[in-house]
């Protein structure tokens, strides 16, 4: 299974890819991930590649081979949607982070949303940032998305496997709010 995560540097894509990797390890599945740290983490476009299964050599997903695209932000989801397979699926956080421009913004949000919906009729959008804000910390947006994915039953892991991985990976101080985010995301689908 090939999973692509796209977003903006600083949104927590790396933690999500680590969480999926940990679930794979706990289930005895082979996994390869690839991401870029450093300069692009400062508000640039970021992509994580995750590949689960045997006999995988490349850590990068070949073009048109992604089974799932997790969009942390709409523009970055649209930028990577062509990586999906014919029957690939997309879950997207319905939030725009506008790239800086000192001219009047010409960003046409509807056009981008329609492009994604036209490309994949079964695209799923959830208000992950809003849900995270309501819970009290925007940064748990990634855990809301993981909850929604669990409800969509796309990942090869059960609700309790994913929950246990969250308990294993998240610092105790932030665990409660993340578990709350996970359940809110799960129930949003």
């Amino acid at each position: 299974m090939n999973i692509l995560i796209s977003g903006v540097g600083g949104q927590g894509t790396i933690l999500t890819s680590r969480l999926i990797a940990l679930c794979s390890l706990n289930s005895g599945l082979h996994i390869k991930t690839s991401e870029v740290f450093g300069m692009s983490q400062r508000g640039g476009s970021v992509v994580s590649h995750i590949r689960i299964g045997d006999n995988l050599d490349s850590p990068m997903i070949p073009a048109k081979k992604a089974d799932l695209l997790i969009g942390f932000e709409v523009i970055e989801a649209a930028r990577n949607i062509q990586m999906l397979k014919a029957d690939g699926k997309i879950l997207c956080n319905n939030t725009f982070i506008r790239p800086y421009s000192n001219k009047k913004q010409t960003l046409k949000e509807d056009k981008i949303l329609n492009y994604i919906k036209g490309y994949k009729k079964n695209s799923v959008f959830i208000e992950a940032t809003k849900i995270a804000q309501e819970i009290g910390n925007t940064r748990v947006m990634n855990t809301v998305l993981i909850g929604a994915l669990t409800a969509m039953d796309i990942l090869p892991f059960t609700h309790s496997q994913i929950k246990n991985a969250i308990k294993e990976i998240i610092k105790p101080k932030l665990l409660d709010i993340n578990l709350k985010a996970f359940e809110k995301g799960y129930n949003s689908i």
Partner: protein
Amino acid sequence: MHKEILTGNEAIAKAAIECGIHLAAGYPGTPSTEVLETVARHADPNVHVEWSVNEKVAMEVCGSASFTGAWTLATMKQVGLNVAADPFMILSYLGIEGAMVIVVADDPGPHASQSEQDTRMYAKFSNIPIFDPSSPQEAYDMTKEAFKLSNKIKLPVIIRPTTRVCHGSSTVEINGKNDNIAVNGFEKNPKWIIFPKLAYENHVKLEEKQHEISNMFSRNQFNSVIGTGRYGIATGGISYNYVKEIADNFHNVSILKIGNPYPFPEELAKDFIDKVDRILVIEELDPVIEEGLIELSYKYKKVDILGKKTKTVPCAGELSYQTISNLIDSYLGKYDLIALDEVAVTTQKAIDLPKRQPTLCAGCPHRASYYTVKQATKGYDCVYNGDIGCYTLGNAKPLDAIDTCLCMGAGITMAQGIHHIQPNVKNIAFIGDSTFFHTGIAGLVNAVYNNANITIIVLDNYTTAMTGHQPHPGIGLSARNESAKKLDIGKIAEACGVKLVRYADPYDVNSSIDVVKEVVDYDGVSMLIFERACVTKLKSSKYYEIDSDLCKNCKICVRKLGCPAIFTKDKPEIDSSLCFGCGVCKAVCKFNAIKEVDR
């Protein structure tokens, strides 16, 4: 034995710990940083782990420690090896006693570097053996082998992971047990003192060793020939994975996989050349494997070699899965094997999307500092010299606050060069706190001694931010997060003879402007230290919003600051989820339209 999910960097660190290292030293640099961080987190307390002030220091600390019989690990990124090149080139002559492995991470792309230099060339240059891992598992296995080899041949050995290996992760099988290596201590001997006569003698011995090491590499598990086809493909490092996955579809291919590009495993490569009719060489950056094969082909058997020298393979940048797939398809002339249904999943055209460049974070104190300096020096004839760190991003519009950027510590020295030729131009040098300790101090001493009229502006955010918040001598913490001596940048400058040292809070824009004017107008070397913590680890307690009734739509907040939290629809607005609450936009607003809101 058990399995863990590890990045290449973590795998190297865990292997080094298991080998029983006594000391590790490095300087942060993407993509190498997490190697030393992992050692600091997991090694026994009796292992000395340090963030050295720069790579030259790390190399020398590791080198001399290994003279005692200790096993040591030095870590850096590729350009860090330039800083450490002086001790590195001589250590190959001098040799070591215990074991010394140097991790040098290369960055094809480049993703986060000033150059695409290839450390395999440094291996050839210095006659130091090198391992080039293709995966985290191999990074782990190679590190173990590299320590053994170093101990056996009494030379430092390089491990050279590239970005995709460093930051890629996979299931890695590890041993989990740490070896215990005894250290005999430093024995006095003339062999530790390099002199021209010894240099000549050791140079001869070093050259003689190369053949023996090459033969070892021909026989180890990291170099191999896979398949029996007449179409040869030679590859190594991360590219091997793409080649393997793509070439598995073809039966007429032989792959030469090179895990030790120097000394080139000639015996193995000779067998490969014998088997094939022609060779395509797929490797990132410099044609190192290609040159090894060309040399062999010249000596043994004429064979067509396609690669960078024939302009078949791109000479720069990362090689993607798709690029390699296209290269192999056209090499084998088998276009019909491409699954056409996969190429044409959809005919819908991609739409134009706005580009998203890296930018200073919302609330970043550097944005405020740059804005202030530009405002204060309006009307001055000024050159703004930049340096390496997050703050290099101050070059982008609208801040537009950097005119030169070369390498670590060069802002202060380049300001001097321009000043001596154009004394009437004001030269300002920006430098970060960690960079100041890395290579800024020598330049500062030079400026005072050689009477350069420049202004040094230190952007002190109390951390090494770009690489992920490593401590440095200015903040009172060690690599292990224990308390350490804290050195004061302002006092160092005063001790070096800087007569005017001032401090300012970047968020306090209006009073900082006068301080900037004072230091820039000063005749001689002056220093201003902007002090404010990096926001990436801080929780925001408030945000700002724009009252659209009071806003006159002058857009000064948008046009001057370039803050990612401020955007324009009909009038400027602030995205409260991105706003950190620094209040700099409120300070620049002339109509008092921006209000503070508690979270």
